[in-house]
């Protein structure tokens, strides 16, 4: 299997006078792999995720996702990249409150110009699998945290991305909802989905990911299989 993510000598510096927020850092993630990025606050986790998602650009180094080098792409190409190759799940869901659940899920497909009928079939399939089919016409504000995160996952998967990026997906959830989402990620990984998970929660990392990369001060401090991490 090839690599979905390839980072080579990546450096990101926000303050020219200060130390880099990230790197120099090199990292690869193989297709079908589930990797958890952990580390304390300010360690560079979100910066790394933003670089992989094409939301930010490195000062130095190369970032390739799914064989496409994205660090030199323009905004339009990056937008296409995001909607075609990756799906994103955020800590605070980032659903649009004035769209119904199904319209939220459909949005990336519609922005990509997919036919509504085909997109609807895919959305229905995802809602069924994720257990939110009965909420299709509801608005996000009326759902529980766990349900909202499931909607966010469905939205992330609507365009069948090669890579799912999850930024603290259980950070805003209670224990029960957190467990639901954890199980969902495990199931997704088992189905073959490549997942990169950013989290503070070591238990989540251990249960969802087969590999954990720990960042400290923008550099990789630990990169090991979870079997090795768990004492």
């Amino acid at each position: 299997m090839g690599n979905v993510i390839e980072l080579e000598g990546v450096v990101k510096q926000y303050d020219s006078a200060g130390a880099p927020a990230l790197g120099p850092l090199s990292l690869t993630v193989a297709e079908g792999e589930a990797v958890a990025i952990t580390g304390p606050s300010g360690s560079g986790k979100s910066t790394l995720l933003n670089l992989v998602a094409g939301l930010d650009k490195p000062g130095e180094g190369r970032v390739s996702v799914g064989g496409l080098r994205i660090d030199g792409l323009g905004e339009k190409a990056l937008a296409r990249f995001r909607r075609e190759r990756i799906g994103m799940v955020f800590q605070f869901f980032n659903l649009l409150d004035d769209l119904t659940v199904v319209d939220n899920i459909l949005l990336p497909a519609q922005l990509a110009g997919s036919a509504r009928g085909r997109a609807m079939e895919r959305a229905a399939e995802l809602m069924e699998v994720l257990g939110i089919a009965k909420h299709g016409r509801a608005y996000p504000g009326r759902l529980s945290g766990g349900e909202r995160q499931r909607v966010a996952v469905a939205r992330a998967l609507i365009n069948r991305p090669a890579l799912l990026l999850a930024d603290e997906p259980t950070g805003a959830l209670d224990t029960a909802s957190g467990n639901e989402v954890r199980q969902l990620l495990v199931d997704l990984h088992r189905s073959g989905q490549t997942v990169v998970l950013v989290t503070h929660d070591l238990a989540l990392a251990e249960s969802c990911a087969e590999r954990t990369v720990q960042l400290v001060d923008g550099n990789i401090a630990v990169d090991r299989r979870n079997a090795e991490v768990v004492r």
Partner: protein
Amino acid sequence: MSVFRGNSTAGPRIRLGRVGRRRVQTIVMTLSVLMAVASAVVAGALMVSASAPFDAAFAQQHGAQLTAQIDESATGADRIAATGHLPQVTASSGPYQTAQIDPPGPGGLDMQQSQTVVGRSAPTGGVDDIVLRSGRWATAPGEIVLSTDANSVGPDTTLGGTLKISPAADSPTLTIVGLASSITDSADGWVVPAEITALRAPGTPATAQMLYRFSTATTTAELNADRDAVAAALPAGAIVGAQSYLDVKLAADENTALFVPVMTAFGVLGLLMSVIIIASVVSGAVGAQIRRIGILKAIGLTPGQVVRAYLAQALVPSAVGAVVGVVLGNLLAMPLMGDAGQMYGGGSPGVPWWIDLAVPGAALGVVALAALVPALRAGRLRTIEALAVGRAPRSGRGQWAQRLAARLPLPRAVTLGLASPFARPVRSAALLAAVLFGTTAATFAIGLTSSASAVTTAREPGQSIPVSVFLASPGDPGSPASKSGGGAADPAKTLAVIQSQPGTADAIGQSQGVVTVAGGTGAIRVRLYQGHSSVEAFALISGRWFNGPGEVVVPTHFLDTTGHKVGDSITLVDQGVQVPARIVGEDFDPGNAGLVINTDMATLAAAQPTLHPDFYDVTLKPGTSVAGYVNGLRAALQSTSAHVDATQAGHLNPTVVAFDAMAVLLTLMLVSVAGLGVLNSVVLDTRERVHDLGVCKAIGMTPGQTVTQVLTSVAGAGLVGGAVGVPVGLALHDFVIPLVMRAAGSGTPAQVQNVYGVVELVLLAVGGVSIAVCGALLPAGWAAKARTATALRTE
């Protein structure tokens, strides 16, 4: 506002750095206040310059509110004097005996303009104190003091010069010993009382002048009632003429009477625009900073400090706009005020200091009130609620719109944009109000400027006449008339030469005179035409232009003053001869206080059989060179006294040009501010939606789709605002213009009222969308370029 400074005694203080950071809003607030203050300063200055000098001089000179010409032979001096003791009369002067003289014009030409000379032994007399400008008062027969306003009297009106009292060769002459003026223009000259009898033409009735001030005389109706009271104390028909000081004042205010309401309208529009924009800016700032307010209050900021901070956010840029507006207003007012200043013998009076203080003070007061409501809302916000509230709309707002829009067969970015205004109804209402008001203001302002321009054209209908031929040279010592010892060219022969000249299309003869209207207001100027005068017809308000002798066309003020209407018959009195005439039209002619009668020269033939034109206005066939024509006609008329002039066709009064330029400038400013108001609303809206836009970008929305979404989110408001704003602007124009014209003492001619073309209206309607889209382009670009990661972190 993010940094606290202060100590235990002063308490915490909010930094005003936010003003600088909100550049668009700061610029919009500054410009809108600037425009409002500049317009209001000009309007206020014009109002004062129009009224103050006249009012001050009128009070100082004890001006006569009513100047009555009374038939002395039928009444007797004692009975005339007794009218000065009527209950409503507070002061009077007279009776002074009067005479009409007919001094010859240049080259001995009979000007056919009789002048009123009053016999007064002294310039003062309790009412209408005459101000001696130079020389001395007449103390002996043979001396005359000329009015400085009577500039058409005689060829030589310099001090020490002489004046013949008629064109007759053996006419007595008077020596000009002084030049003086009356604030109410009560006479063309003054002589000692003993001189009057000698000046009266044989057979003319003896008349006397009586000057009155009344207890109530501020309106035409009150003055008419006062005049009726005087008339009732005299034999019927004894008052042969009466002049109201309001008419004199109206003539003095001829230009400014039209300008003031227009400039006031611009000032009011600008101020309304400022109120809408500033209320929108401050409420938008409060709405966008609820969490910030919550945090600041949580760490000790008092409600009063919050209110003061937001008030300052509006007042600081507004104060800058007000100061610059005062400076601009003063600069703009100068060319217009010069007119008024010269009228009373001084230079430009300048903008009064109290206007420079009152206008910006009032504007800042209005701004403070507009900002106070949202500022109070910020001050009253409960800390716990403010901390809990984010920017995202509460569930329920606009969901139905999104549900419907999602079903439309349009690109998703478009449907998202179309539905988004419903998620923030207050912000969308502010945007709609900005577009609607901007379109209304633009429509109204453009109409106002067009109407003002139409007024300047309508009041000078002879503008297109390229050539004039005067029957006597205007005082040129080298002219044939002077060389030959005087005399005017023969009218009939001159006309024949003009008509035979190649290139001549038509020649319209003109002359002027003075008549009285039986039962009317005294001496009234009459403009007499010979030929196809419709070429020079004034704009008609009602009725039609005269078709022949016996028909007259008069201005609105004439009808108001005399109580007549179009279709009425009146009697003109000329040289003591009564001439019947019928009013066939009401024209727009605010000159001469709106008291000019236009008629065919033959109308007065019974009174003046030898009446002839003083000059001919000549129209040319298409393609004729004016210069070549003038040279040819000069050669053909070389042996006569006639003087050929190329007129300054198209030449406009510099004051009017300055006013037009200012109106265009203010219209552009108003439209610009309207566009900036929309920009401000869209900026606020985009700022509030930056997180949602970040989400959309994170899931794959391209920059182009982001721009499309932002633009379509304002397009609806632009369409509705344009569609509603244009008819509202039209209605406002149709309502205001007649009021403006009425304030200037006239009705409204069609060409002043109907100034909008179809293309113009369509462009204005499309302008609503254009204003909205142009206003949204900049924030749409910002939204498209905004870093997605940053936007996602925005709460």
